[in-house]
């Protein structure tokens, strides 16, 4: 299977090679940590050793030149050791406390903000968008840039009641954590797919296409002599899954594609169980390059949360306490028919109690 030059199935390099010596020595021995200031952590070991972390924001879609630039900084301040976080931030690992401020200085002058720790808004988990994906109902990188510009101060400070995690996904496949985020920005289609029967014949299997539809909207049909499918438009909710399995059913439609906004999800088991994100705004038209309606809506939600939530309350926990009616009141968002679930478990979301604030 292997030649000298081309080995297969070797797997990734062993992580041990990449651990800072202090980390290696104190692996599994960490005792506690402290946040020294926004973006700066210290972890202290049972042995007394410390490792300092400086967290910098990254657009995630970066060039090799950008990576080389941060490598230069890591060489200079971090003995050549760094890592990335599960939210795509860069973490510089420092043995020497003295290096923290100079590093931050250089990061800032290279346009990299430091922050994202504790009660901050961290980087936005996101996806490909128009940069690389065929399924996208919106762009991802541009949206993230526009939103993070607006929320920048929440990244570099820790003034929120608790952590606030945002995700962006450009279609219902949700290549991220949209379904469990404090705030989620989700690209959506709003028209049934446009079937190209000629192409369908060659590119798609009819049974697979039919079974791809979550709401059974697709049925076999002979169109102009071609064995194809048709979509019952009343049953289609524009998920795009048929397009995923059958390229002849494109669903993107500039007039109707856009953004929906979701709130109140979480992943951690801290205090409350993990929660799904729930619909806040059903539709905002795509308005590139800066999607002002989206950034405005997100900022509004963040500010209302910042003002009303109690310490240690995630967005979803805050809403659980005050109730959804109050959430819509405080944010000024409109509650519509679309907010009422009508999928499989819809019935479980109806309010089955008289416990209501009047």
């Amino acid at each position: 299977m292997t030649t000298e030059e081309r080995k297969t199935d070797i797997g990734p390099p062993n992580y041990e090679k990449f651990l800072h010596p202090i980390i290696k020595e104190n692996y599994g021995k960490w005792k506690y940590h402290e946040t020294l200031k926004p973006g700066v952590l210290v972890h202290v070991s049972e042995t007394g050793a410390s490792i300092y972390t400086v967290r910098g924001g990254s657009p995630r879609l970066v060039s090799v030149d950008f990576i080389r630039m941060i490598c230069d900084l890591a060489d200079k301040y971090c003995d050549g050791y760094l890592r990335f976080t599960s939210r795509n931030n860069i973490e510089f690992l420092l043995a020497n406390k003295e290096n923290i401020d100079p590093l931050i200085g250089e990061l800032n002058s290279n346009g990299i903000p430091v922050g994202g720790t504790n009660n901050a808004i961290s980087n936005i988990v996101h996806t490909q968008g128009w940069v690389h994906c065929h399924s996208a109902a919106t762009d991802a990188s541009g949206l993230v840039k526009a939103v993070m510009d607006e929320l920048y101060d929440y990244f570099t400070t820790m003034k929120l009641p608790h952590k606030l995690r945002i995700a962006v996904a450009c279609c219902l496949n949700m290549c991220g954590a949209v379904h469990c985020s404090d705030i989620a920005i989700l690209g959506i289609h709003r028209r049934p797919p446009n079937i190209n029967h000629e192409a369908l014949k060659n590119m798609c299997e009819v049974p697979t296409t039919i079974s791809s539809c979550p709401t059974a909207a697709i049925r076999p049909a002979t169109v102009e002599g071609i064995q194809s499918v048709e979509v019952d438009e009343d049953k289609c909710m524009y998920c795009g899954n048929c397009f995923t399995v059958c390229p002849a059913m494109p669903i993107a439609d500039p007039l109707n594609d856009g953004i929906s906004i979701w709130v109140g999800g979480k992943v951690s088991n801290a205090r409350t169980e993990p929660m799904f994100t729930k619909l806040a705004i059903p539709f905002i038209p795509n308005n590139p390059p800066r999607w002002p309606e989206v950034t405005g809506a997100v900022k509004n939600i963040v500010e209302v949360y910042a003002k009303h939530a109690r310490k240690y309350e995630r967005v979803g926990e805050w809403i659980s306490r005050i109730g959804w009616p109050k959430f819509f009141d405080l944010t000024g968002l409109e509650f519509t028919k679309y907010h009422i679930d009508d999928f499989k478990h819809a019935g479980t979301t109806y309010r089955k109690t008289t416990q209501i604030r009047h």
Partner: protein
Amino acid sequence: MADEKERKTPLLDELEKGRWPSFVTDLKKIAERKPMVKDLLGQLELSYKEKKGHWKHGGLVGVRGYGGGVIGRYSDLPEQFPDVKMFHTTRVNQPSGWFYTTKALRELCDIWDKYGSGLTNVHGSTGDFVFLGSNTDVLESIFTDLSKAGWDLGGSGSDVRTPSCCNGPARCELACYDTLDMTYDLTTTYQDELHRPAFVYKWKFKMAGCPNDCVASIARSDLAVIGTWRDNIRIDQAAVKEYLDNGLDITSDVVLKCPNQCIRLEGNELSIKNEDCVKCMHCLNVMSKALRPGEDKGATILIGGKAPIMEGALLSSVLVPFMKMEKPYTEFKELIESIWEFWDEYGVARERIGECIQRVGLGNFVEAIGLEPIPQMVSQPRDNPYIFYEEYFEEGDEEE
């Protein structure tokens, strides 16, 4: 040709404004030496204008001997943007916990600079180091150079996807098992399953060191391994006192936030009713210096998390409340393999394990893979009386 590319990108240029680092600025800079990026910017500008993507649907490309790891991508405007006619991504399997040396990173950059667009995602949502945009003909070379440097591809298609984990014991005091080692171990153990799609659909592993779940494993993986412990939270009363002295309002910030009301503060003394503690982490999060997980550590194993399509998003649910997580993870691997066997037999095409379990029923699933049904698997027993009794008395049976 070169001339044509001196396109204007007035819409994208708007994204150079503002304080958050701009990918447009970065891309425009590298575009100066990468025609591919120039065309990418051109096509993206068009997308911004038209509010529509310009990529064609998929396309099977790859490297020899691998069924996954590369996502084919073609422009639907190849005449207008010839340099992104092909724009495939290569998923490079990241090291556990996303730890790097600058040397390693530079190596990756050099390989990629040599063959591709020079654009990356650090990292992809699944965790890979993503090389974004190359032609088909360089894929083999990229792979060869990568493997020479000690790297391999990640997953794509109906296979094990690149496992990922939180930084765990490397830099976190809360880690209850070695997430990095386990991730490395699983990745290497299941290289074949990772590189040669043979499942009915994708399979994601994510390893989190504790219930804070800093890799969102419960939401985004078919199999989530989340560290926890069985014995008592370790309390350092001196540190408790220190927190009090520093003004922490332990009653309102900790005691009242405990989901199970199992913490008491009497004077300067904190006590925890550990048998009622559900290991939610909150008190440990707030009082990092004073509280530590117990010493009988392991993990909870949860199954079935995923994004919405088809049957609605799922959070993973408890399969094994507690398992010791020690090398070589034999018990764990046996469990995984019996699940895969089941999935292979009963899963239908494009059905994630979570959906499969929903369809066949958790009770049947658990029985089939040889686990005992236990109340920890559910938030509550059934509330409907539609029970399929498997045993009944036949006419001729003994009267009881």
